[in-house]
């Protein structure tokens, strides 16, 4: 007898628990977070990551300067193209994108274009770099940050 009461109680509790949302209209959110990368965004991200990795490999001494420069200029060109493609895609979507992101992109693009000259060794770094990629010397805008 106790057994059947126990079984009935368990079954009832389970039924109540799983049926409640449907009967009472409780909804789980299904909202898609707006963090999916578009194709151009994904390409941009990949290009920037590749740039960072080359920086690291060079700093860690895995690439010599000649390899580093040739890879870097190639990757910079790619990253620029990806940034522009992404911006074009956004513009054609007519999406009003986040001003922060816009600013960030503008900053990176300017950095890739203009660069910061290290006052220690004369190497041209991306704008926004905190350290010189060639000699590791701290760059001026580190203080500004």
């Amino acid at each position: 007898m106790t057994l059947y009461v126990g079984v009935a109680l368990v079954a009832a509790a389970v039924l109540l628990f799983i049926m409640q949302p449907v009967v009472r209209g409780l909804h789980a959110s299904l909202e898609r977070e707006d963090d999916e990368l578009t194709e151009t965004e994904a390409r941009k991200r990949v290009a920037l990551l590749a740039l960072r990795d080359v920086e690291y490999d060079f700093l860690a001494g895995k690439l010599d300067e000649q390899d580093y420069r040739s890879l870097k200029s190639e990757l910079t060109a790619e990253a620029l193209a990806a940034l522009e493609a992404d911006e074009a895609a956004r513009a054609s979507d007519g999406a009003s994108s986040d001003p922060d992101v816009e600013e960030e992109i503008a900053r990176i693009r300017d950095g890739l274009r203009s660069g910061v000259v290290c006052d220690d060794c004369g190497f041209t770094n991306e704008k926004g770099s905190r350290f010189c990629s060639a000699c590791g010397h701290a760059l001026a805008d580190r203080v500004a940050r």
Partner: protein
Amino acid sequence: MTLLGEFALWISLPVALWGMVLGFAGGRTQRGDLVLSAERSIYAVFGLLAIASAGIVAAFLGDRFEYWYVANYANRELELFYKITGLWAGQRGSLLFWALLLGFFSSIAVFTNRKKNREFMPYVAAVLQTVLAFFIVVLLFAEVNPFQRLDFTPANGRGLNPQLQNYWMVIHPPTLYLGFTSFTIPFAFAVSALLAGRLDARWIQLTRRWILTSWLFLSIGIVMGMRWAYLELGWGGYWFWDPVENASLLPWLTATAFLHSIQIQENRGMLKVWNMSLVLLTFLLTLFATFLTRAGLIESVHSFAENITIAMIFLGFMGAVLAASVVLILYRLPQLQSENQIESFVSRESAFLFNNLMLVGAAFSVMFGTMFPLISEAITGTEISVGPAFFQRVNFPIGLVLLALVGIGPVIAWRRATRKNLQRNFATPVVMGLVVAAALWSSGARHALALTTWGIGAFVLTIIVTEFWKGTRARARIEGEGYVLALFHLVTRNRRRWGGYIVHVGMVMLFMAFAGAAYNVDERFFMEPGDVVEVASPMGHTYELRHDGLSVNLANGQRNLLWQAIVTVSVSKDGEPQGLLTTEKRQYTTQDAGSPPMTEVGVKSYPLEDLYLILSELEDLPAAVSADSDAQGLYLQVLVKPLVGWIWFGCLILAAGTVVALWPSADRQRRASADSVEPAAEPAVVAD
């Protein structure tokens, strides 16, 4: 309690099916109430499976021998500890335990994602419930119901196989199950990504920790199994390429491949189809491993006939999963295009690819060898098994290439490496490897394969140490930190990269330990009390072993023991006393009549080698067990096993490295959702 558990198991099936249907329907119609109900059904199934498991444990504790499962895996004399772990001692209980763990992980996955990644969750819940429902169906309908009752109640059970009454055997299976079952979560997310059309790297980022956790449990589980075999089976080895061992290795190999190839997708936007395929394949292989072990397909043809139902259900489900996976991938193929191409054969990308090919190749060769008895039976009518020799011949070269790639991968340049890049990074390590191999050669080691392994091992270790050194030095110079602090920051700022390197150190140690087996010493002596034998070890030591006497206990059934013969051996190494070692023969009351007594080995471990004693035979067994104190002669097998300890130590390092990679970094939490760039991809030195 046990009856309640049985009812709970029956109730769990409709609940799981309900959740499966509602999950798919909720995802399709985007109805939040259906999805919430599906998610709740997962908690419900977990609760019901917990009640069912408690029912089985209660049956063990209450000596309820009317249950087939309890009667076959316990008896009244069994220690309390083994009664509790009886839940996973045999096939029926372990299937329930498996489902319970899956329910547990599924609940965690649903709970941790209750407020985020919502677009994935309908299908994740649906897929998890599908797999849960499958296991519940197996439990209820495949003649493996742990609640099945006998027609009568035996006075006592048959007891637990003595070889399973071992600490390692108690924790080894659950550890493996943790690995197997937790891999269902990445699988569910992958399927959900395919169904929902969310095909960027997001599903990988969401499941990276699940994959690493699962991989960690698999690795530890496999090594624990090796340790159990080493200490308990009494033949001196730790791996026999047995079908069940292979079955656990298969998903480990593909999961390892997956862990590497996702980095290519995250860093270069390539290999999307491959990664999807690998995660689906790994899940299939975890099913295959269960299937192989449960259906008894390989070990004997007879058990195949007995378990035809379970074999069919498993084959049907695996077939359905495979078909659904292929269809889904083909359907989404246009959205799974690469964002980049491989530019050069000599590059980090191609090193990763090569690593993947090797791992998957190893998996297929192991699978082929394991299935060979079935294949040969189907073709020629006779069952032929391939011995360890086949597996070794195929997998040793693959293993060596993989080992070398462990060193090459991290330092070869992305995209394309120039000759200078290669020279710069590989000159010292190659020299180091050659120096080590030459040094070992000159000290008398002549085994080509072992020398190659150790040489490559030294090459890889040099590279990893150099990586740590260069990273620390660069950071110390840039940030003006001391070296210790710089090293600490280096690792904590990019746990994935440096944790991975630590795992690699563990793997190198494992490989070097495996190569040590080429120098195993194995000698057998006849000894009377007082006899002394000498054994020379490959490391140049001499062990002196003295037979100090054989004692025979007639236990007459206590602790399930009929008798126990213990020989005490005093050990000295190069003249230094090392204490006593014992090795035993035991006959259990629970063993089948006429089966040979079991062996307990005596092991003394040193950093570079193990001394391993086996009481291989008593000279006059009938006299010894009838308390004749003169029957003291015996055959002692003495093994010296170089580097075995490195396996266990290497596994610890591997686990530590995985934990480093898993540990949430403060950095990552701070930026939480703001930055979709994963820490691994960032160069540690310039990132912050």
